[in-house]
């Protein structure tokens, strides 16, 4: 995508995000039942989205000859999962996973 396309893309995404934020504040009281009915979906969305976002790029890398399973990245992901269980801050799982990945590449190549 060129710069102009990206600006248009970001403007549309920003506008959509703003309208979601404004939604109930602006429509106060008029959409309570709708929110109650859609609440199960809203509660289930975060794990579904986050898993769909992070699992494929951890398992695969895109090479010229197609998708390739990346053992080092999968193990780094496991390190991050363990660290995320013990630390509340996002910093430690990210840093731990990266350090594992660098160490693995340095040792095994």
């Amino acid at each position, binding site marked *: *995508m060129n*710069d102009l396309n*990206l*600006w248009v*893309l*970001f403007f549309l*995404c*920003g*506008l*959509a*995000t*703003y309208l*979601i*934020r*404004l*939604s*109930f*504040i*602006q*429509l106060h*009281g008029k959409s*309570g039942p709708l*929110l109650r009915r859609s609440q*199960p979906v*809203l*509660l*289930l*969305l*975060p*794990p*579904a*989205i*986050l*898993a*769909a*976002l*992070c*699992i*494929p*790029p*951890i398992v*695969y890398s895109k090479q010229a000859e197609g*998708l390739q399973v990346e053992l080092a990245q999968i193990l*780094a*992901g496991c390190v*991050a*999962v363990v*660290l*995320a*269980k013990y630390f509340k*801050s*996002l*910093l430690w*799982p*990210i*840093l731990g*996973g*990266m350090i594992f*990945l*660098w160490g693995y590449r340095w040792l095994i190549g």
Partner: protein
Amino acid sequence: MNIRDCRSQFWQGVRDLMPLVSGVLPFGLIVGANGIALDMSPELIMGMTLLFFAGSAQLAAMQLIQENAAFVVIVLTTIVINLRFAIYSATFAPLFYPLKKRYRMSMAYILSDQAYGLCSAPDQQQRSDAERISYYLGTVLALWVSWVLSVMLGIAVGASIPPEWMLGFTIPLAFLAMLMSTITNRLLLIVAVASGLAAIFLQGLPYNLGFILAIVIGVMTGLLLPRITGRSFNSIMGRPHE
């Protein structure tokens, strides 16, 4: 309404947000640095940051841009990720609705996860509306400033990070860490596994459609499973019956 109480609540909000900066800073660094790695200009990254003001949606959009996803898929993904703001919007509606339209509209722009978390503390619920709005403003303005500064720092640092560091991998790791914090019961774990597996197998579909489909499969699993096992959704989620 007492101006001094409001002022003290504003600064209380700023102070309460400070510990959360440790979570915001690495996130902002990753957004800024990855933007540079994607060959985006600093103006474009800052423009994106001000337009979105939503870190996870920004990272997701960057990942999808990197994967050459279709325009529509990126917009759709942003909307789906930011749907949670609808819940926050409903939570703050009684507080903000009486305000003048222009104030209401600016309050909505700076709505964030962190402000929602801090402002729904029981201690805040007991205060007057004016004090609660002041506290809200303290948290969101402190968050806004720290977010924008973190992204700027990421842009400044990003140019000097060598490609061998595989900086791009910080994006899925950040989502993985966030995923872990959202899994609070077994149903949510199953939803995550279903969606993750579906995303792996549907990876080959064009325009990153597999990603949207995987989310649908994950959510459907979470909606259908309680019915199959004969338990109510609310009891599994640990929420009281309405």
